[in-house]
């Protein structure tokens, strides 16, 4: 999920965007696959992709905006370099998930959807990771953590060089 890091000029970006759009144009209902691919490439749905997407799919800018804003996954502003997701749903609550989330947010000095000032970490709520039989659950980037507690989450964060203050 980490955005491609090398700085790119506008021409190169436009080229990648058009490749992604063309690569998915043959699909039935291609917009979501295109948006996923764009976000995987850039970490956000790049502004520069709006016009070519609208043109390729013959939709209006308002329609495109409507789709991007409907889904929790799609970002118009970049997230931190890493993302910590903490499950807020019922099975995790039954195993102390709410308190765990509160303590982690407090230690990180963040609210839900917040990003640390150094841009390293964004914390997001998630509603069920399918780990409800080994709750509570969390996720650091692609790495799932079951029976999550502060120690296990902090260990996963420190593997990404993210320290958690006491």
């Amino acid at each position, binding site marked *: 999920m980490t955005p491609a890091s090398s700085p790119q000029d506008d021409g190169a970006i436009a080229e990648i965007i058009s490749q992604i759009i063309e690569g998915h144009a043959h699909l*039935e*209902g*291609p*917009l*979501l*696959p295109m*948006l*996923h691919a764009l976000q995987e490439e850039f970490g956000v749905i790049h502004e520069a992709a709006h016009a070519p997407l609208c043109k390729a*799919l013959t939709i209006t800018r308002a329609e495109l905006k*409507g*789709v991007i804003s*409907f*889904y*929790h*996954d*799609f970002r118009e502003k970049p997230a931190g370099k890493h993302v910590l997701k903490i499950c807020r*749903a*019922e*099975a*995790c*609550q*039954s*195993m102390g998930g709410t308190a765990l989330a509160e303590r982690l947010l407090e230690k990180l000095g963040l609210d839900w959807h917040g990003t640390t000032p150094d841009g390293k970490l964004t914390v997001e709520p*998630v*509603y*069920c*990771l*399918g*780990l*409800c*039989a*080994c*709750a509570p*659950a969390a996720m650091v980037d*692609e790495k*799932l*953590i*079951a*029976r999550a507690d502060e120690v296990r989450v902090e260990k996963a964060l420190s593997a990404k060089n993210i320290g958690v203050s006491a």
Partner: protein
Amino acid sequence: MKIYVPMDSAAKALGADEVAAKLTQEIAARGLEAEIVRNGTRGMIWLEPLVEIEKDGERLAYGPIAEEDVAALLDGQIETLGTVEDIPFFARQTRLTFERCGVIDPLSLDDYEAHGGLEGLKRAIGMSQDAIIDEVKTSGLRGRGGAGFPTGIKWDTVRLAHAPQKYIVCNADEGDSGTFADRMIMEGDPFTLIEGMAIAGLGCGATKGYVYTRSEYPDAVAVMRQAIEIARAAGVLGPNVLGCGRAFDMEVRVGAGAYVCGEETSLLNSLEGKRGVVRAKPPLPALEGFLGRPTVVNNVISLATVPVIFAKGAEHYANFGLGRSKGTMPIQIAGNVKFGGLFETAFGMPLGTLVNEVAGGTASGRPVKAVQVGGPLGAYLHTDQFDTPFGYEEFDGQKALIGHAGIVVFDDTADMLAMARFAMEFCAVESCGKCTPCRIGAVRGVETIDRIKEGDASAIPLLEDLCEVMTDGSLCALGGFTPYPVLSALRHFPEEFAPNTAQKEAAE
């Protein structure tokens, strides 16, 4: 020697990858003749990572195994649990849909066939469309996604619709808290789902299928995609399914973090690349579904149960169960339980047996207080309701629902007012925004419950009225069923909504 280490997400989240890596290292260091197989999970999540060692014709289980235990395991110093089939939680089950899950290598088509895979599809190929639909009707299979609609009738509607292109869409958006059966089968026995969709395609005259799953399930997406490629290369999918002259192919699509996209019409909009807003019915998706064409939308478990129905016969399947709830249900035992995991059993087992015996009570050792069945839109059941048999009509009679059959257990520390508030909050966050009772009602619901918490008893009838409006006036079950958890919490635990307790707790 074969060593099985699950690659199921839950096992991985408990360290299975690290165990597998360590095993590889130790096997090389010791010069052992051993093959590591990454299987699915057997569903006993409290024992994960559950490692099985097969040698001399015996397959023995060990677990939970940590990375640090690997050397001792290979030294024979860890006591076995016996065979998986001997573990009481497993021995008590009737595994039909999940028969192969955790037994085989999920990505080996040979292994799949050696364990009865493709028998159902081969039988279906020799049957007329009519006969295929009749078989599903006779099995009594009802939708496992929540609504419990008879699958055969849905298929028949699509079969009878005239259109040049029809679709089979698998709803793998499994967003309910407490559920993971769809994920487990996609990661542990993906060919079963592929086979079930191919049979659906033959029965309805649909040549194209989609599996719409969640972005929260990256492992399931990866396994499904690999399995589809393998099936295509082997001619199970493609222009000429197993040489029968008819076509069926499929692909995986990934959602983008919206619970409501599990609702079938919202899902279809999402698949088309639109906002996941719910569509009014009629028209039924069976007549005007994906891109306006006739479409079967079925849950993963509905479709993954089709192969065993065709392999063993509809009557065999229908002989299990209770009343109009026929066959088996993969019940997902979750939350505050000692033995969490997947328990497939014939319909009819009382809820209390599931919670107290199968799940072994709470993990915390404290008394059970409430059990939420059927996800965030399901009711909280009180221990007084524990003799309710697990079945569609039986739960309906308790103002509850079985939904996708997740059961989430809470101990006596649970704050039922907070759970009711969460149900409203969740509805507000996930509402698609199409209708007012849901979009605005859920926000008002949170505020009203906050007033109750602050000691305003007059807000209780307001909450009840609001729930009535949501139930009657919502277009789909997100707004329409949120009152289930809210009102069940209020009815079964009124003391937690009483002004003095609520106020006292607020003051603490």
